[in-house]
């Protein structure tokens, strides 16, 4: 017997045609997306396939990053899983319609399908609620023009599920008297409930409505496939790919180096869309515009013009407006005409369209580009592993290396680093003077030591930070560590130069440092600054400098554990809050060592700020911002206020920049007399 749930031959033909059209649009959308993304430069993301796959599954199934935000997380979890399983239910029914085959008869399957549908419905409606009723700030709900496609999408998904349930409700009524059928639906509580509305309807009428609503549901499903080509919201399709292609390298080594030997090369920064890597161009399509990045961005939260989310949105706009290969319909003088949108920026002749905004300076303003502290809060939070910082650095490279158009303070810092190998511009010969009376060896006198103590610019030249250097020397000497410094031969590590976009200066500093270190056969390096630490550890290998690098807090924590240092008492009870620096914390996942040191000092009571660990809030000095003017509300003031909110008596840091920023912030708040900032090492040294 032919299954009465099957389509007629005509139905199948119509279905095939409509389906083919939908698939055509979907395929075209995919081709267009592929074309857009592959305008970018090459970058390799196909190593470690197992790890990539596993991460994708982990982040798609468990969604740990999304669930960090309770409400939005639940919303996403519901409709993600709802729609995923619901799609299977649609396909399941399709087999019945096309081939008369019922794949699963178990009532449990229909229960699962119903639950999935319900999840999808609740999730998608909740997402609409969050967007249009609650107006959750990080979502930045726009006006009708921006929102209409999203409204359409939400409506289509909602209707698809509603039609599905209506169709199933009628189906249950229509098949009530067919032996074996009702048993399938005993657990399908939603569909059965819907069926109860139509109980008693004659089977033929019920069949009619069952099919009608099924067609409507399929039209919605096909509509969603078609929308893939036109909607800006293709996040669901691209996100898993993006997670798969995420950057698996060390977090501190994401910035790619430039080969300056290449004589052919004319530009060095990201001046136009085609200068990005293809992964950079894929990111904005994976972006759900959820705003989690922006919600954690210190620049955004202090009302700077930068939002990491908007950087991606603007890159997408630039792609769509300048290079999108798409056939579009327009009306000219009352006539409808078709034309291909201009591919100005990427066109082979390289024609610059006049009406097209310049990427750097117009689409994305220079103020946005300079506001970033490269703190990595955005990337740590982004559920689809978007990479904002390399984009910002690339745009800065355009301003510095290609256009030579950047803040005067940056120029001063560059010139100082060029001439005196430190951003302050203090005479380089005096770099080792801080250690003059401390009995510290210079490698030029004796290079037969276990560790090079790479002091860094702040530790060598800043009056306040020199005291931290002296504390470290005291600790190392007490522990009997064999170490030496480079003295006047040490150069700036280059962290600020690189992040300010001056890759050329960065590489020249790196080369000199590596040469010196290799000359003295340096194997192990201690750094007192997380910026030096990250750069030496993660970036120097790009240039052949392979050293074992350790941050002072890591070494000290180990020395305490090994019993080589005996912390004394911190004296009277001191309430200390510890501030995680971005480059030790988020970039290098070291949250524990500094806290272990603090806990080892008796008398210290450690209290935590609300934003801590990988959600720690930047002090404002990273990414070379240390050397730039900050306008409006200052990031360090904001961070200081966060610290003051929990009433500490002292603030402990692991970074010279954080130290300076907190001291300034405390002065701003006029509490610098009562609340002091210390490096973790200082708190230890004073007990010894």
């Amino acid at each position, binding site marked *: 017997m032919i299954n009465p749930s099957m389509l007629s031959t005509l139905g199948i033909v119509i279905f095939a045609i409509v389906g083919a059209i939908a698939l055509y649009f979907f395929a075209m959308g995919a081709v267009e997306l592929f074309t857009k993304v592959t305008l970018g430069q090459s970058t390799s993301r196909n190593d470690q396939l197992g790890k990539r796959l596993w991460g994708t599954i982990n982040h798609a199934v468990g969604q740990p990053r999304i669930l960090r935000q309770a409400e939005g997380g639940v919303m996403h979890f519901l409709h993600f899983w709802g729609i995923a399983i619901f799609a299977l239910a649609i396909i399941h029914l399709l087999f019945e319609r096309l081939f008369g085959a019922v794949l699963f008869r178990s009532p449990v399957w229909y229960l699962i399908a119903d639950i999935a549908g319900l999840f999808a419905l609740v999730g998608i409606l909740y997402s609409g609620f969050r967007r249009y009723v609650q107006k959750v700030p990080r979502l930045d709900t726009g006006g009708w023009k921006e929102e209409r496609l999203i409204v359409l999408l939400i409506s289509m998904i909602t209707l698809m599920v509603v039609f599905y349930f209506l169709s199933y409700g009628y189906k249950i009524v229509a098949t009530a008297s067919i032996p074996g059928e009702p048993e399938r639906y005993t657990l399908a509580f939603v569909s059965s409930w819907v069926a109860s509305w139509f109980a008693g309807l004659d089977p033929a009428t019920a069949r009619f409505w069952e099919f009608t609503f099924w067609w409507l549901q399929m039209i919605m499903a096909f509509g969603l496939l078609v929308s893939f080509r036109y909607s800006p919201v293709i996040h669901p399709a691209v996100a898993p790919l993006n997670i798969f292609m995420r950057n698996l390298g060390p977090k501190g080594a994401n910035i790619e180096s430039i080969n300056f030997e290449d004589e052919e090369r004319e530009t060095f920064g990201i001046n136009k869309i085609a200068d990005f890597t293809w992964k950079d161009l894929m990111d904005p399509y994976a972006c759900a515009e959820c705003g989690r990045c922006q919600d954690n961005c210190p620049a955004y939260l202090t009302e700077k013009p930068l939002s990491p989310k908007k950087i991606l949105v603007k890159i997408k706009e630039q792609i769509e407006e300048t290079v999108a290969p798409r056939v579009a319909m327009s009306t000219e003088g009352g006539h409808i005409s078709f034309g291909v949108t201009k591919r100005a920026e990427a066109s082979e002749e390289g024609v610059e369209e006049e009406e097209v905004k310049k990427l750097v300076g117009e689409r994305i303003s220079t103020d946005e580009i300079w506001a970033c502290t490269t703190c990595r809060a955005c990337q740590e939070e982004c559920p689809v592993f978007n990479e904002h910082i390399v984009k910002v650095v690339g745009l800065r490279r355009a301003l510095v290396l*290609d256009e030579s158009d950047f803040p005067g303070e940056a120029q001063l810092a560059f010139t100082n680093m060029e001439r005196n190998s430190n951003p302050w511009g203090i005479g380089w010969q005096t770099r080792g003077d801080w250690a003059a009376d401390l009995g510290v060896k210079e490698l030029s006198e004796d290079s037969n030591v276990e560790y090079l103590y790479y002091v860094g610019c702040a530790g060598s030249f800043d009056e306040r930070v020199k005291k931290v250097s002296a504390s470290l020397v005291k600790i190392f000497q007490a522990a009997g560590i064999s170490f030496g410094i480079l003295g006047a031969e040490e150069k700036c590590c280059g962290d600020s130069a690189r992040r300010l976009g001056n890759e050329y200066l960065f590489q020249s500093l790196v080369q000199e440092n590596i040469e010196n270190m290799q000359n003295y056969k340096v194997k192990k390096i201690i750094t007192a600054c997380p910026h030096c630490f990250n750069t030496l550890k993660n970036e120097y290998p790009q240039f052949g400098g392979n050293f074992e690098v350790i941050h002072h807090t890591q070494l000290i924590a180990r020395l305490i554990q090994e019993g080589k240092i005996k912390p004394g008492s911190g004296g009277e009870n001191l309430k200390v809050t510890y501030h995680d620096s971005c480059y030790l914390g988020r970039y290098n996942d070291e949250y524990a060592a500094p806290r272990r040191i603090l806990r080892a000092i008796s008398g210290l009571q450690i209290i935590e700020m609300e934003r801590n660990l990988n959600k720690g809030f930047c002090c404002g000095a990273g990414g070379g911002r240390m050397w730039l003017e900050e306008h409006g509300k200052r990031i360090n003031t904001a961070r200081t206020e966060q610290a003051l909110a929990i009433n500490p008596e002292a603030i402990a840091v692991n970074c010279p920049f954080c130290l300076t920023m907190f001291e300034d912030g405390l002065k701003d708040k006029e509490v610098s007399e009562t609340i002091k900032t210390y490096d973790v090492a200082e708190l230890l040294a004073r007990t010894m």
Partner: protein
Amino acid sequence: MKIVALVKQTFDSEAKIALEGGKIGRQGISLIMNPYDEYAVEEALKLKEKNGGEVTVVTVGPDEATEAVRQALAMGADQGILVNPGTEDIDESTVATILAKAVSSLEYDIILGGFRAIDDGSAQVAGRVAEILNLPVVNMVTKLEADGGKAVATADIEGGSAVMEVPLPAVITAQKGLNEPRYPSMKGIMQAKKKPLKKMGLGDVSLDASQVAAKVKVLNYSLPPARAAGKVIPGEPAEAAAALAKALREEAKII
């Protein structure tokens, strides 16, 4: 517009000066383009951007001074000339004579230079060049407009400023405040490697050693005395102030 910029390579302002055998040691010193000359180069480039033309940078110094010329080329100058006098025994008249000779073989509408160099600070060279070439000179300029046949320059004078007009060609010397020198772009740095940079000796500018012999001889260099450590005077404000006044009168002998 044909523009000439005169530059000098000097010690970095943060360089640690030490005497070696009675002379200033050059060991381990970072060398830079004299900052006042940087203003001159920047102004030359601005004039070129506005009026079109060509910028030639001229320096007198040892071969290592090519670095300073390269920097000017990277900033955007079109060609460079370095004349190596072949001796370290030179004074302002030596340098001015060589520069004037080198410049006289060029076409020029305006000659720019720093008003002084930060090393010897004598502020003579550009003026001497003007004298030799018989050109008008405006010193310590903080604002410049030049086109057609004349230049209008705002110059620092004691206690104020003066706006002056001179016919071109003329020599203009740059004072701080004239502009913000640009930082060379990568493209500039790359191109600078390919721009013409002529290295010459005295013979190439038809001079011989006797014509440029230094007229001033340095007898002796000495370093300023090391700064004594500061002194904190403790005590109640009134007592401390009295002690301070006493110290200023009796120890420092300045009141």
